[in-house]
């Protein structure tokens, strides 16, 4: 089996920044032909995002991490002719994706109702912060905004502290993108059975609510608003993150029942704790967890975080180091599993990027071609796909339609 | 062998006196429990109406003072004789009742009422009396006048219909009197509950026990099968609706048998390994509970191929060591000799006038801190007349003599 799952599927991709490109990133890796529509007037802004490398509109880390295996062409969508060409392109495509800050596609007369006319079985995906209907449909949105509005920040923080922004910019972007990718695959599945296309309207805010189902169910059931838990857990103790030997090294440890607790105490050489009134059972450990955490750290701080994991896991106790970004890249487990892949890069040679997080038992692991430069595939798109003549292409470039 | 304790000081029912009009099995067994637990049971008979079981025996000559059946159902009691057909005797009975806590009877009909000893009468002379009436069909309802024997009740209550080989005909129960004893024990429990209530409230009451209802209570599964789904369970014999193997298999020797039950797949594997047929584990016919049930005929015959080369104790040891349920189908004499029951002191030795030391079944439980119980030999007819009439009723010698002449005490 050499074929990739989505081979033969073509996507016209208007998305930019994070949430959108991550959707088509999944599709591309799975074998779909993703044609990224940009222009020098409106390049994907991540090409230039906080990049120390270059601002020459080729590639930043941000961009590279989300655009492997895609093709790129440039069209100045402000011009009617460009929109004509896009329609031609869409006619020979299966999916259109966009994540503009407002109803840009409609203004370009590329809304779903328009596209249906030229390609009845088209599948159109719209990703937005608040949905393509409703009071906020015209608002721009960033992950952080959605995380704050959706309640995620109010649950990200230290007990008794304040709401904090999530670890990595774009948590809501990427989780939304993956829900979007799944929805598109479902729509494709439906089309493969019935020949019908459809419109997919994804709201990041709603994705975040899905991710907070527990707190939401608690609110709808008990009218309760859960506070910040930090590394703690309402039913387990110990359940936290402890300082280790070395500079800013940490390990996470969780004990889910009394058997694990006994194993834990013996392993770290404090069997007497199993008899200690304060920690004798789960309820007492929860009542006294601050003290417990302090005592545990007395032990962890004399060991490296990897040591702690090995010792405790051998005893059947859950533990894992808090990996730093560099450690993630060097982690022997991820390494052996081949989570990382070396991707060719026109500027920096090859770089090590994370693959998408799954392994298929058969066949190739996906299309991880290097990310395209701006307009890199104009020839392919306009000549091969739309059969434009050299002259015509030259003219369109002069007219800055292809630009 | 446990020594019989003569020490009643700390027996649970010390101080409770029972005027006992019961006879035969169902009744006698009740007061036997009470007696062993320390109650003073005064069994009221007469030469005109001795307890039937005094005569029910075989092999022993008629002049033997004691039948085995009587001996094993009446130890721990006192015996006196009153000819209840005479008004004077009933007077005396009332006097006995006045100084008693419990009255027990199991006549074939409302005899006590006819004697003026019904609950309403007794309440007048002893307001907090607890009266127990045991009968086959209850003291109310359409059959209240009918005599009943265990077998009749077992047949009527549905027990016989389930005491049968799979899909075979209904059969009479092993021991004549199964329902007698089951009823008796429910009766004992009811009396103890009533005594407990009296100890808190000072109030007595009337207990009406029906053997038929006892048996119904002992057939919850078949009865609920019917009340829930309207289905009548077929008799299963040694089989079970959810377990296989689950049967009784012939062993080496003359009419020797062992019972084996396998309740899940783990036990099945252990079983196959233990009897040296591991290949059965893979055998399609037996590889899980459902299949074993479907093919249990075959399975049983195969298992018997193995058991019949072993002695039944052997089979138990082998299988139990492997964690599989198994036990010999003991013969009565094997029960009497079983080392386990022996070591637990299930049997008690009782020194019997006219017979000597006999070994009888005790009551089936041990209390950690109380002497074994009152196992005085079963009373001879009227053996305790003196105690009852002289000590209890404080009657002068002369009067007692007179009443004996008048065949009141008789």
């Amino acid at each position, binding site marked *: 089996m050499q074929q990739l799952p989505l081979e033969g599927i073509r996507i016209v991709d208007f998305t930019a920044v994070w949430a959108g490109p991550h959707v088509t990133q999944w599709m591309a890796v799975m074998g779909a032909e993703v044609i990224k529509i940009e222009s020098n007037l409106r390049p994907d802004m991540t090409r230039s995002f906080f990049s120390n490398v270059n601002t020459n509109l080729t590639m930043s880390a941000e961009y590279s991490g989300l655009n492997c295996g895609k093709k790129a062409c440039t069209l100045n969508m402000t011009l009617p002719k460009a929109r004509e060409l896009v329609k031609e392109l869409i006619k020979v495509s299966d999916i259109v994706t966009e994540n503009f800050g407002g109803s840009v596609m409609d203004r370009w007369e590329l809304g779903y109702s328009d596209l249906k006319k030229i390609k009845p079985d088209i599948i159109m995906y719209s990703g937005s912060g608040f949905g393509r209907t409703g009071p906020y449909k015209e608002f721009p949105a960033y992950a952080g905004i959605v995380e704050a509005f959706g309640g995620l920040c109010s649950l990200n923080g230290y007990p008794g502290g304040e709401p904090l922004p999530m670890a990595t910019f774009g948590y809501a972007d990427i989780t939304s993108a993956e829900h979007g990718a799944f929805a598109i695959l479902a729509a494709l599945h439906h089309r493969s059975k019935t020949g019908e296309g459809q419109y997919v309207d994804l709201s990041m805010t709603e994705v975040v609510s899905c991710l907070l189902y527990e707190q939401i169910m608690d609110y709808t059931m008990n009218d309760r608003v859960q506070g910040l838990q930090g590394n703690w857990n309402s039913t387990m103790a110990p359940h936290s993150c402890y300082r280790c030997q070395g500079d800013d090294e940490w390990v996470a440890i969780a004990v889910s*029942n*009394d058997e694990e607790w006994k194993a834990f105490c013996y392993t770290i050489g404090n069997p007497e704790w199993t008899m200690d009134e304060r920690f004798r*059972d*789960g*309820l007492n450990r929860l009542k006294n967890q601050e003290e417990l955490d302090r005592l545990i750290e007395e032990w962890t701080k004399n060991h490296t975080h990897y040591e702690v994991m090995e010792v405790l896991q051998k005893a059947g106790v859950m533990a894992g180091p808090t990996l730093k970004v560099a450690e993630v890249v060097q982690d022997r487990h991820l390494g052996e599993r081949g989570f990382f892949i070396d991707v060719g890069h026109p500027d920096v040679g090859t770089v090590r990027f994370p693959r998408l997080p799954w392994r298929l038992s058969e066949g190739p692991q996906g299309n991880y071609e290097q990310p395209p430069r701006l307009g890199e595939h104009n020839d392919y798109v306009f000549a091969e796909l739309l059969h434009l003549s050299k002259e015509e292409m030259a003219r369109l470039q002069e007219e800055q339609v292809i630009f | 062998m446990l020594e019989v304790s003569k020490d009643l000081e700390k027996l*649970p*029912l010390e101080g409770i006196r029972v005027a006992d009009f019961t006879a035969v099995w169902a009744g006698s067994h009740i007061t036997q429990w009470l007696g062993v*637990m320390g109650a003073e049971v005064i069994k009221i008979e007469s030469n005109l109406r001795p307890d039937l079981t005094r005569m029910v025996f*075989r*092999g022993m000559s008629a002049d033997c003072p004691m039948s*085995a059946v009587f001996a094993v159902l009446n130890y721990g009691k006192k015996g006196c004789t009153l000819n209840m057909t005479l008004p004077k005797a009933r007077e005396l009975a009332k006097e006995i009742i006045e100084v008693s806590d419990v009255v027990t009877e199991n006549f074939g009909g409302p005899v006590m009422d006819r004697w003026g000893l019904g*609950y309403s009468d007794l309440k007048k002379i002893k307001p907090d009396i607890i009266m127990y009436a045991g009968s086959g069909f209850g003291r*109310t309802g*359409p*059959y209240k006048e009918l*005599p009943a024997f265990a*077998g*009749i009740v077992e*047949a*009527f*209550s549905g027990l016989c219909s*389930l005491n049968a080989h799979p899909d075979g*005909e209904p*059969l009479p*129960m092993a021991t*004549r009197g199964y329902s007698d*004893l089951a009823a008796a*024990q429910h009766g004992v429990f009811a009396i*103890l*509950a009533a005594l*407990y209530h009296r100890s*808190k409230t000072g109030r*007595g*009451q*009337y*207990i009406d026990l029906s053997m038929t209802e006892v048996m*119904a209570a002992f057939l*919850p*599964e*078949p*009865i*609920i099968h019917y*009340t829930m789904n309207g289905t*009548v369970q077929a008799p299963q014999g040694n089989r079970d609706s*959810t377990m296989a193997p689950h049967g*009784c298999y012939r062993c080496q020797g003359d009419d020797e048998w*062992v019972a084996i039950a396998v309740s899940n797949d783990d036990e099945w594997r252990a079983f196959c390994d233990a009897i040296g047929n591991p290949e059965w584990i893979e055998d399609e016919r037996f590889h899980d509970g459902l299949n074993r049930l479907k093919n249990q005929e075959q399975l049983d015959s195969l298992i018997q191929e193995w058991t019949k080369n072993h002695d039944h104790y052997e089979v*138990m040891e082998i299988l*139990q060591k492997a964690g599989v349920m198994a036990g010999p189908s003991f013969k*009565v004499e094997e029960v009497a000799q079983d*080392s*386990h*029951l022996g070591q637990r002191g299930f049997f008690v030795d009782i020194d019997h006038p006219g017979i000597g030391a*006999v070994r*009888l079944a005790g009551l*089936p*439980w041990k*209390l*950690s801190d*109380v002497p074994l119980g009152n196992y005085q030999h079963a009373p001879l007819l009227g053996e305790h007349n003196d105690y009852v009439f002289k000590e209890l009723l404080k009657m002068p010698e002369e009067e007692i003599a007179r009443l004996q002449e008048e065949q009141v005490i008789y």
Partner: protein
Amino acid sequence: MSTQALSGLKVVEWSEFVSGPYCGKLLADLGAEVIKVEKPGSGDKSRSYGPFPQKIPHPEKSGLFLYLNTNKLGVTLNVKSTTGAEIFKGLIKQADILIENKPPREVEELGFDYQSLKNLNPGLVMTSITPFGQAGPYRDYKSCDLISFHMSGMAFINPSDGVDDIENKAPLRGATLQADLVAGLNGAIATMSAIFARQITGLGQQVDLSEQEALASFMRRELGVVTVEGIGWTRLKGTQPGMASDIYQCSDGRIYLICFHDRTWEPWIEFMGNPDWATSELFADMASRRENWDAAKAMIEEWTKEHSVDEIVRTAEAMRIPCKPVNTAKEIVESELLEARDYFANVDHKQAGKVKFPGAPYKLSETPWRVEHPAPLLGEHNEKVYCDRLGYTKQDLVRMRAGEVI
């Protein structure tokens, strides 16, 4: 609600299936407060054991469970967890009685043996109901209804009669669950006796009850005859001492008839119209009848086959000859007798709906038996018991559930 006979007795029932629960039921039905401790998840084994409505298994609809657990409070508790053990001890401290039917070794390993528990509560009566008791070589052997029935000796003499080629038939386990029920019943009696002992001494004690013995003691007559008269006893025909009574085939069913004694023999042959055979020497007195009882039975059955169950039973009873039809569960449930005695209880259960099952086999005039509430749902009273009784918070409940402690 008037007080019942056993009102005020606090019982903890740590038991599964039939023996322990029947013991607890007897106490609960007469007013004792029984807190039933079930393992989280599947709960009491009898919940997995039919009968079920429409034969669709459902943990809250097992007829056996519903019957055996009326009037009890139900809590879930994993006594193997540290917290669970704590709670268990908390319950024991407040209890008069503990009923358990666990393997003795398991109880000791958990540290819940009597010696340990009595330190927590010297007044505790601990009733242990196990197949072979707390001591002796079989103590740790496994058993079930079948095994106990056979090891009690009951099976070997069963049936007492009625099978021609009995030599080729295996000894017979009677109706199901008898071993368990008898053990539970004896446990209840023994428990009460210990309660009375406590009224004298103020101290509790352990009741050690063996299922094997409980059943064996039903054979006290046979055992007596064997030990006293040294007569071997088998289920083989003709060797049975005592009164002959039999099942006879009628035109439309079976009857159980006792017409052996003179008192019943005369009226019976009169009822049969004094056939010649009956007047012969062979059947003149009890002794000769016993000798020739097979013949007599055969002749009697020839006659009964010609008549209906109804006519025979009606006339026989009029003559006070013990005689009843051989019924199935169906007929006993439908019988006018139990109808008239108002015997069956109709209990409405939240999930199983209305279920009809046996009531109490005895009627107490002052403190009548009654169903205060149906069998508990699994863990139905966790909050009532743990929060109200032992002072845990609801949040504790949530945590204990997450830890699969309750």
